């Protein structure tokens, strides 16, 4: 029993400042700095005037001259979504987070805990604390179809024996919610296959011949087959942030990043674990935020290598920033520091020193070993020139 929770226009609601802001206004998320100028999520009013998500900005404005563009706020989206995910995990759900506003969990093990299916759905609604569309079905894909079909505040249930019949009448557009099958949706529609039932009527060989792997997967989904959920692990979320001074570019950004990386690595909650993925985000001086997820090739705890990987992404900042934040998305195994090929006397001495600092920190707290870092030597405000950063080798 897979439960699909769908919060429509989640990113737009977060960027606009609440669901009330969307009522009666033709809004769309402004194109991001990089890539072609395409609008993001659009409000119902804009949609009624022919504007679609992913449409070129020029075409969107031509169709709806009153269209108002809202700067994207990926940091707010991530924070709100994390809050919702934590609330759902609070009722015992092990979540697969497909994207902001769309999550799945297996409700089979929770039915007993919440006095039946209705109790579970009630607990889900309470945890969400906002209107949502909920679909319940034996597979992930079918539950998504049910959630998309139902109205807000309603639940659509599909039983095991009705899955194929139910999916057969669903539009092929649902396949666009899955990254592996999104590429073939336009081709299917051009071929006149508007419903999933049409896809099932074709043989597996015909589908594989024309559409390859995505086609085979799409046919399997339409038949009610699906892969198991990829649930996320519930972990501590470590974040470090810092306000930036007046000259928020170049050296200051690099130095601030250095301090944040050192602070993150010095947090006792890390418990010696390496870092596998980090989110670098910034609050922009004009309006809106910027967010970049960085997945390391291998789990790291070497501050220099982490800084090197992050500083390249920092150059993608679209505008001056007023604050910078680092958040650990995923930890790697403990230890895992890459040793040098030739372990000389200096390396051994540094290892002993590192060990000593570790012991001092254990006894006297994280502020026992600090170093002074020059952040912005040209600042007119003296307290912004230097900062204390955790001591790292």
């Amino acid at each position: 029993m897979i439960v699909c929770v769908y919060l429509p226009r989640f990113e737009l609601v977060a960027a606009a400042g609440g669901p009330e802001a969307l009522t009666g206004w033709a809004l769309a998320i402004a194109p991001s700095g990089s890539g072609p100028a395409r609008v993001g999520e659009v409000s119902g009013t804009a949609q009624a005037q022919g504007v679609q998500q992913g449409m070129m900005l020029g075409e969107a404005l031509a169709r709806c001259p009153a269209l108002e563009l809202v700067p994207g706020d990926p940091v707010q989206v991530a924070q709100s979504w994390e809050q919702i995910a934590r609330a759902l995990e609070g009722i015992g759900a092990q979540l697969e987070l497909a994207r902001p506003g769309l999550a799945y969990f297996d409700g089979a093990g929770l039915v007993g805990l919440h006095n039946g299916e209705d109790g579970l759905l009630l607990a889900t609604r309470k945890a969400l604390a906002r209107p949502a569309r909920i679909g319940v079905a034996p597979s992930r894909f079918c539950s998504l179809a049910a959630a998309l079909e139902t109205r807000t505040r309603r639940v659509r249930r599909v039983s095991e024996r009705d899955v194929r019949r139910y999916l057969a009448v669903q539009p092929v557009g649902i396949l666009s919610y899955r990254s592996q099958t999104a590429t073939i949706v336009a081709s299917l529609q051009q071929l006149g296959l508007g419903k999933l039932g049409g896809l099932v009527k074709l043989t597996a060989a015909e589908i594989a011949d024309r559409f390859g792997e995505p086609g085979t997967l799409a046919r399997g989904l339409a038949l009610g087959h699906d892969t198991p959920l990829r649930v996320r692990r519930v972990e501590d979320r470590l974040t470090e942030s810092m306000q930036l001074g007046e000259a928020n570019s170049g050296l200051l950004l690099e130095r601030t990043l250095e301090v944040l990386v050192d602070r993150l690595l010095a947090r006792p909650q890390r418990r010696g674990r390496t870092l596998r993925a980090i989110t670098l985000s910034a609050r922009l001086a004009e309006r809106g935020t910027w967010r970049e997820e960085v997945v390391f090739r291998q789990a790291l705890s070497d501050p220099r290598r982490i800084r090197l990987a992050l500083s390249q992404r920092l150059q993608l900042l679209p505008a001056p920033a007023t604050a910078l934040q680092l958040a650990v998305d995923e930890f790697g195994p403990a230890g895992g520091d890459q040793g040098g090929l030739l372990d000389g006397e200096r390396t051994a001495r540094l290892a002993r020193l590192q060990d000593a600092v570790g012991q001092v920190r254990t006894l006297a707290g994280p502020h026992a070993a600090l170093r002074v870092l020059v952040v912005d030597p040209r600042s007119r405000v003296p307290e912004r020139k230097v900062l204390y950063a955790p001591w790292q080798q």
Partner: protein
Amino acid sequence: MRSRTIAKPAAPKAPKPVRVQAEHGRPIAVAGVRVEEVREDWIVQDKWWTEQPIRRHYWELITVEGRNVVVFHDKLVDRWFSQTA
């Protein structure tokens, strides 16, 4: 063995409140020590576009004891602070 946790230290150049006697806005004594000479004074106005603006009048002074001190008058809270420039 008893251990004592070290508290988070203030920023290296954080302003510290100081008692300053002034005449017409010009410092004449710092922490009870008379000022011998004013070497320089300058004004810093910054972040006026934010909710935490900065409006300070800095004074670099030589006291009668021969010490070089930097103090500033925070015009927003009307208080004096010493600071390592």
